[in-house]
């Protein structure tokens, strides 16, 4: 071949030089577990649904969310959102308002009438769920989607459990419960109200059920021994809250003393405040030691609820009570001081926690009951084969979210048990802690705060206190998510590779390394904002 002057070799491309052979470490893509997901008691894939919300595809976001939790509009109001406490964005500015976006999606779904897909197959198995609280509803939903025939038997006149008979309207409007429960029933779940199960064995036999999930909650108000005159009025908090649901409104008088420092005490105090009374909470320890969440105490104080910290009730008489001042010892326990005080009180409401009514389990062999709760194995099954349990009636943190998580977990194990197999949860990937992220790349963005109702209406009506985000705010808030540990297709790896060794596969398909040329410098791993690339040593 004729070559130009001074040229002796054919031109060649450097592609002939496979620089991949230089490598001692190689980058690999992975999905790490975002701390929010790792913390959610209902096992939501938060990062996953936020990914869809970020692009404005709220329906896809809602569908992804409800794979794990069928109650987003409820969760978005009452969940104590431990996810936000774990959110990596708090190390940048403030945590992502996950809960407020969840509520936005839940409300959007109700507004637009989104429904769950009908189960594709029917297994022919029948499962009884006892109790239509969050745990029972969650189990029913997941069992139905797995193709089982589900019947929920509920003692009360409405579905919702403590969400209906405990949590007040001003935190959780009843239409929201109705809408989300209705959607579960649309899957073919049968709900029988006013149907108290008094013997589980009998109920299962009568209905020919193959398995049962018990979620009866904890509804018996705990008593405390307080010397009281015959005319003193004492009631328990749960029955006060329950009576708000249509029965006779409770006659408590003007000056109502609420005894206890948990969320129930706060809810009762705020409820009677709205009915025109003057509630005073009496609690034996200090505000920071109270089991109620600080934001709830704050909201109650804003509404004019009074609190006597470090006080116990010694005596109750008609029209007044005697309280004793307490002092914290060096271990932080309250000790009596011998100092007394009287307080005008038309009634005393006890909010000292609840016990489980285990009557329906009488005579069931194999069960283990400890400290008033039913013991279950890691698969949520009680000591009696085929009877599973979850929510407030088993040992755990008593929240709606934990109850929902139990329902999902139990459903998976019931499904496997009915098929004669065992459900093995997929292995958990490593956590995407803040040290795995390169936060330089995220734009500065202040957290969007949810608006609240004005104080006058909060003191006199049962209108919802905390309001929702509008679409613009919700989108903004969703985009604050850092996408911890999961590729969000920012193209950084593709851009920063000095060797063009990253192949872009196109929208939604992420990337691939070209190991023929990747020298293993690791810039991609350092510059991936969200920690979706890991360097691993090459074998030999």
């Amino acid at each position, binding site marked *: 071949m004729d070559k130009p002057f001074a040229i002796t*070799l*054919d*031109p*060649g*491309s*450097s*592609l*002939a*030089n*496979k*620089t991949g052979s*230089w490598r001692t470490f190689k980058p690999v893509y992975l999905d790490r577990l975002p701390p929010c997901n790792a913390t959610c008691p209902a096992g939501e894939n938060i990062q996953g649904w936020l990914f869809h919300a*970020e*692009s404005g595809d709220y329906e896809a976001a809602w569908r992804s969310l409800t794979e794990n939790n069928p109650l987003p509009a409820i969760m978005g109001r009452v969940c104590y959102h431990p996810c936000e406490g774990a959110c990596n964005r708090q190390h940048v500015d403030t945590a992502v308002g996950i809960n407020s976006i969840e509520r936005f999606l839940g409300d959007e779904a109700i507004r637009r009438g989104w429904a769950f897909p009908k189960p594709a197959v029917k297994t022919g198995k029948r499962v009884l769920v006892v109790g239509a609280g969050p745990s029972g509803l969650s189990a029913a939903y997941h069992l139905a989607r797995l193709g089982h025939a589900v019947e929920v038997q509920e003692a009360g006149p409405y579905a919702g459990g403590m969400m209906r008979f405990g949590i007040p309207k001003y935190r959780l409007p009843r239409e929201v419960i109705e809408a989300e429960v209705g959607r579960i029933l649309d899957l073919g779940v049968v709900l029988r109200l006013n149907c108290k199960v008094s013997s589980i064995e009998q109920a299962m036999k009568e209905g020919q059920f193959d398995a049962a999930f018990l979620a009866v909650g904890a509804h018996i108000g705990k008593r405390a021994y307080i010397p009281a005159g015959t005319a003193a009025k004492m009631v328990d908090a749960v029955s006060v809250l329950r009576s708000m649901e249509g029965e006779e409104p409770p006659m408590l008088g003007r000056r109502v003393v609420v005894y206890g420092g948990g969320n129930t005490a706060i809810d009762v105090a705020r409820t009677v405040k709205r009915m025109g009374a003057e509630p005073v909470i009496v609690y034996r320890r200090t505000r920071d030691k109270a089991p109620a969440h600080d934001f709830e105490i704050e909201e109650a104080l804003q509404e004019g609820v009074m609190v006597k910290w470090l006080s116990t009730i010694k005596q109750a008489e008609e029209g007044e009570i005697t309280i004793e001042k307490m002092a914290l010892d060096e271990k932080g326990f309250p000790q009596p001081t011998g100092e007394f005080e009287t307080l005008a009180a038309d009634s005393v409401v006890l909010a000292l926690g609840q016990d489980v009514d285990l009557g329906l389990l009488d005579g069931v062999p194999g069960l283990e009951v400890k400290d008033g709760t039913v013991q279950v194995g890691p698969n949520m099954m009680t000591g009696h084969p085929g009877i599973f349990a979850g929510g407030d009636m088993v040992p755990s943190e008593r929240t709606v979210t934990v109850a929902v998580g139990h329902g999902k977990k139990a459903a998976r194990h019931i499904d496997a048990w009915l098929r004669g197999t065992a459900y093995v949860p997929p292995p958990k990937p490593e956590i995407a802690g803040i040290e795995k992220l390169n936060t*330089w*790349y*995220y*734009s500065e*963005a*202040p957290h*969007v*705060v949810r608006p609240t109702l004005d104080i006058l209406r909060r003191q006199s009506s049962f209108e919802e206190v905390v309001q929702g985000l509008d679409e*613009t*705010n919700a989108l*903004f808030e969703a*985009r*604050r*998510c850092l*996408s911890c540990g999961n590729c*969000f*297709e*920012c*193209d*950084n790896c*593709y*851009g*920063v*590779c*000095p*060797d*063009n*060794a990253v192949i*872009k596969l*196109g*929208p939604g398909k992420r990337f691939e390394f*070209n190991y*023929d*040329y990747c*020298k*293993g*410098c*690791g*810039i991609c*791993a*350092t*510059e991936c*904002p969200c920690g979706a690339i890991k*360097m691993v040593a090459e074998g030999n």
Partner: protein
Amino acid sequence: MSFQPIKFYQTGTFTVGNRLLAPEERSVQASAKRFNSINSGHRACQGCGEALGARYAIDAAMEATQGRLIAANATGCLEVFSTPYPETSWQIPWIHSLFGNTAAVASGIAAAQKVKMKKGERRNIRVVAQGGDGGTTDIGFGCLSGMFERNDDVLYICYDNGGYMNTGVQRSSATPPAARTSTTPAAGAEPGNVFGQGKYLPAIALAHEIPYVATATVADLRDLEAKVRRAMEIRGARYIHILVPCPLGWGTAASDTVRMARLAKETGVFPVFEAEYGEIKSVLAIRHRLPVEDYLKPQKRYAHLFGKTPRIDVIARLQALADRNIRKYGLLGKEAN
């Protein structure tokens, strides 16, 4: 509550791409169809900032000229690692000049283009010259100044890695003070490169009052691409000075190349600005101001400052230089000025 109601895109334009942005708002590097002007298989070290900076810059120039581009390249790492005869990584018309004359070669190409255009033989073809800091600030300085002074229609890009890296890390007039190189050892009372010598070529280019002068780093891709795009809109002599960390010469981890460039900018060590006809038009503000130690410590070329008795005096002098940049160029953004 104040918040941006719209236009918040999670990472904005800090990342290379961003799936939430419209395709036309994304960077050239984000495109699956980018030119890859300098292709895989080149022999640059792991994590080479120069290879990266060259692809960023030349791909942007190719995009801006729709592929009608010729590049002249001075001797130096960029030439050596990309083109060991007969192989080349360049996917554009590219010529290797001598070490010191690349500006002159580019001037010649530009002159030839002008003639060919006049004769109607050629479409509009643009010219880029590129070289390392040694080839630019030292041996190629005369040719470059001439190219500026004649206002030849060339974009000159200097890839500044602070030394003669290709021949074994010797000092250049762009080596920063206190840095150890093979010719400025970390020995004696004033270890490393001396203070008070060397040249800051962007300022010299500015003094020529040519149509366009800019600095950039491999840590701010969008800024770099915008500058190349702007430069290609202008006719006449243009100069872009890009900071390209060198893992070998700086003694940094290969994985830290972009991070080092970012630290140089965020500490004020390397001011990033843009000027037209001798006047500064804009600066890239520091986002999170950091002390110079954060930039110096990860680099072995400054290890002698962090020995048993740290040289706080020397670090303070380097901090003073960074502070002066911040003051002089107003690097803290509008509010801070």
